[in-house]
């Protein structure tokens, strides 16, 4: 089985109000359960906002610590899932459901190493 990273890109700014976010989170829970039931789920979670990030940079013999995020942009990595899938089409089918549910752009990217099972 191949492994894929499904990254969810979120726009800067306040999250939608609870009455909008609630049903979305519920649907995301359903997809996650399906992934688990099919043995395709590896790991996934939402991330805290980018201003909570810290960046480390190796410089000469030292490592510089600065306030993050690494890349400032209008959109940021809001969360990710790692899934197992036999091929890209299957991974894209899962990614499509996340995109439809959240209305957010999703990036699907293969890992270098296949899953052991």
């Amino acid at each position: 089985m191949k492994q894929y990273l499904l990254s969810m890109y979120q726009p800067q700014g306040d999250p939608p109000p609870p009455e909008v976010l609630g049903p979305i989170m519920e649907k995301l829970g359903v997809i996650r359960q399906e992934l688990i039931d099919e043995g395709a789920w590896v790991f996934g979670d939402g991330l805290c906002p980018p201003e909570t990030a810290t960046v480390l940079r190796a410089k000469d013999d030292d490592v510089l610590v600065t306030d993050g995020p690494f890349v400032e942009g209008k959109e940021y990595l809001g969360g990710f899932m790692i899934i197992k899938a036999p091929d890209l089409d299957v991974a894209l089918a899962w990614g499509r459901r996340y995109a439809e549910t959240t209305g957010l752009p999703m990036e699907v990217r293969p890992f270098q190493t296949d899953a052991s099972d």
Partner: protein
Amino acid sequence: MPRTEPATPGRGPGPHPERDIERVFREEYGRAVAVLVRIFGDIDVAEEAVQEAFTTALERWPAAGAPPSPAGWIITTARNRAIDRLRRESAREDRHAQAAVLHAASAGREPAEEGPVRDDRLRLIFTCCHPSLATAAQVALTLRLLGGLSTAEIARAFLVPEPTMAQRLARAKNKIRDAGIPYRIPPEAELADRLRSVLAVVYLIFNEGYSASSGDRFSRPELSQEAIRLGRLLAALMPDEPEALGLLALMLLTDSRRVARTGPDGALIPLAEQDRQRWDRDLIAEGQGLVRACLRRNQPGPYQLQAAINAVHGDAPDTATTSWPQIVRLYDQLLAQQPTPVVALHRAVAVAEVDGPGAALRLVDDLDLGRYHVFHVVRADLLRRLGRRDEADEAYQAAMAGTQNAAERAFLERRRRSLQAPRQGI
């Protein structure tokens, strides 16, 4: 061991074994690669093996004669050579080779696949035209793997340096392998969508060949011929997809006018001024036959409608007797399916013949297509016909600024100069 014909006395080699091999290569390269991709699950392994088999053929066939089934010989030879080589490499712990050997072992256990729907080439073309690949990569891969064109040929056809094309192909093949783009005909639910991108790639190849976007020649017929070959393959493999038939019909009908649309000096001749005796009647008959077969199915799609429009032209001895109202009605249907300004522009050209250039110009001026050079070509022609010389002159200049193609610029320049000539008659 690969099967070869012994060189028997009295039965010498064929007169042109090299030409035989060349022909087998053109006709069978795609199928051989597709079969080997299924067996080994890897494009590079497949390509290398098929090329090796053709090299062996070049060594043996001139002396021994071509085998009774040249395509079968190529595939068998390629498979055997690849298995030998991969076994040696996997013994040296080459992970890539081990995967290909494993794949071949499991492919051998699958039941033999028969029938056009399971043709390996069809799977491979869906892989090459996968929506996760950029259009330029889809086009290059399709020409390379299904058409058997060399990297240098594809680079020349698209006027990019060969290393650029080589890199584009290598990246696309790496993505197929690393991202796990499957070699599979998409399931029914996705088929219509995915077929659209396959047909779009073939039509893009055709159009690049038919009206080259840059360069000295207006057309590169080799590319169009390759697209028609791919179109025939798709129509044969998917006879129940009316849009596949529609695309083939559209390409045949368009190509029937190829020789008539350039003058001896290489300049473009517009439809209205073409010598219709020079249209290829066989291509027209074949294209019109396909259009009729499509009409009977009554599932008109954009390619079928465009083919039908071209079929109407094929019937008419000249522009005056062309059934323009019928063409406008077909454009109405096309516009309903593809409500884009480009379709509206082409519809306006037909409207000019029914309701006059003034009515057409009103339609054209409503379109936001200033960056599309054909828009200026159409406007210039309508303004010229309305006798609005200064505006026509400006429009011709805008049209010329928008194309890099020398033949088309020559035509536009000539038209523009004719504006200054004293007008004849009324």
